[in-house]
């Protein structure tokens, strides 16, 4: 509780600071990280990646200190994501599946000071003036990497509320790898809250949704571990933020996941016994800014995923080795 008080203190200080003087790009980033979780809003945003555009509806409500979020795709087959703090449900193929259940996650994930420090060590942060997005004035921030192992990040932050209105990830040649942008956004005011009570599992059961036998198994077990696996060739500034053993949908054995972050993007390494499933294709693939590289190493299947260029996930995977007993 005291933590929360301190947290609001920080928020107030940041907001006060915001009005008092010129903010740096990092200050803006901090403001946006908080505002995104504290503000009630509802809007339509487009997600553009590769040669495609998808439109989705996003509602975000904070009620009684809890965060609720609903994302509904407006194009193609209906896909829906509901998040209540650290719990995430996904509705696809007419099935509601609980994807994440990370109890430990702080209710307002926040950029930690050490993450901000890592960020300024690995990116050149710049302020690029004011632009209009979805009818609002936005401060434009640019984070250019100091090496070619990560992407450039560009963000548009609403000057009043601090909400992130648009975010683009640019490749080396300044081509857009992916971008999110609100095209219509309502901040505060009357926002539909009728779906809030659906976001506990009981509600979902009542709604009469199917549950495959696996579904209950996917109420995930997550254990913090020290697996003994290491990756020697992570780009500088990527610090390990998490190492867990988790159940994963459709996997017989628990999967080891290590997460490394440089403040703006993350790299996950998944290690699991190779069950010779033909679906687990080896090789490189990508979606928007996310690259995935998979390879069989001895009897293990290693998958590296991250919002980094393809060469980075390859470099990381090729350096993965077991260093334990």
């Amino acid at each position, binding site marked *: 509780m005291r933590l929360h008080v301190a947290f609001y203190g920080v928020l107030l200080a940041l907001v006060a600071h915001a009005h008092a003087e010129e903010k740096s790009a990092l200050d803006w980033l901090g403001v946006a*990280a908080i505002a995104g979780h504290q503000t009630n809003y509802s809007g339509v945003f487009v997600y553009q990646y590769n040669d495609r555009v998808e439109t989705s509806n996003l509602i975000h409500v904070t009620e009684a200190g809890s965060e609720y979020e609903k994302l509904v795709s407006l194009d193609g087959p209906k896909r829906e994501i509901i998040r209540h703090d650290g719990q995430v449900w996904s509705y696809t193929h007419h099935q509601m599946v609980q994807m994440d259940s*990370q109890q430990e996650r702080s209710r307002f994930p926040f950029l930690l000071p050490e993450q901000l420090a890592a960020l300024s060590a690995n990116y050149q942060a710049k302020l690029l003036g004011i632009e209009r997005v979805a009818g609002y004035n936005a401060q434009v921030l640019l984070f250019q990497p100091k090496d070619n192992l990560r992407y450039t990040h560009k963000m548009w932050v609403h000057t009043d509320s601090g909400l992130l209105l648009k975010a683009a990830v640019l490749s080396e040649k300044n081509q857009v790898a992916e971008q*999110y942008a609100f095209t219509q956004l309502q901040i505060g005011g009357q926002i539909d809250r009728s779906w809030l009570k659906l976001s506990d599992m009981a509600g979902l059961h009542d709604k009469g949704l199917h549950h495959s036998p696996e579904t209950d198994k996917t109420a995930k077990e997550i254990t913090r571990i020290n697996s003994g696996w290491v990756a020697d060739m992570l780009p500088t500034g990527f610090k390990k933020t998490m190492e867990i053993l988790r159940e994963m949908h459709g996997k017989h054995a628990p999967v080891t996941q290590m997460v490394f*972050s440089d403040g703006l993007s993350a790299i996950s390494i998944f290690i699991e016994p190779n069950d010779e499933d033909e679906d687990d294709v080896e090789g490189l*693939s*990508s979606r928007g800014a996310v690259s995935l590289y998979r390879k069989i190493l001895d009897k293990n299947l290693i998958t590296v995923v991250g919002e980094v260029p*393809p060469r980075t996930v390859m470099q990381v995977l090729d350096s993965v080795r077991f260093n334990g007993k």
Partner: protein
Amino acid sequence: MKNEISAMMDGELFEDEAESLLGRNKNDSSIRKNWAVYHLIGDVLRQPEHIHCDLSSKVRERLRDEPTVVAPRGRAVKQKMRTFALSAAASLSAVGVVAWMSLQISPEVAPQMAMQQSALRPASMQIRTNSNDYLMAHQEFSPSTVMNGSASYIRTVSYTREEAGPQSNPNEK
């Protein structure tokens, strides 16, 4: 001098000797010429039918026209960068020649080269939907989720065109 060049081509020079030779090579056009001639001799000995053009000068010209992307930071770095650029140029022209030669000589080498090159380009393969669970598991801890909230989960539920067709249900509201 010629012996030294020949020894270096065979990998028989020590590092410091090779470095001094390369250093002189930069300033002395006769050494450069000898270097090229020796390579030509070697190539002709190995593959007499296919030697008829000198790619290195063309590659060098093209490289000269390329804008320098890296902003120099102080003199020491500048010096270093120049060495890098030179060795990069050398290895590039080597790759150029090797790739061209292997295409000429043995067709089965060509696909291998092509594969290596495609690995350097951005991946064109789309992440398959059966990997969505990995994306979701990754997303959970990614700073992009801190910034974008659930918006970044849209990545994890994106669908492929193939999937959109037959599997979508017309009765769905």
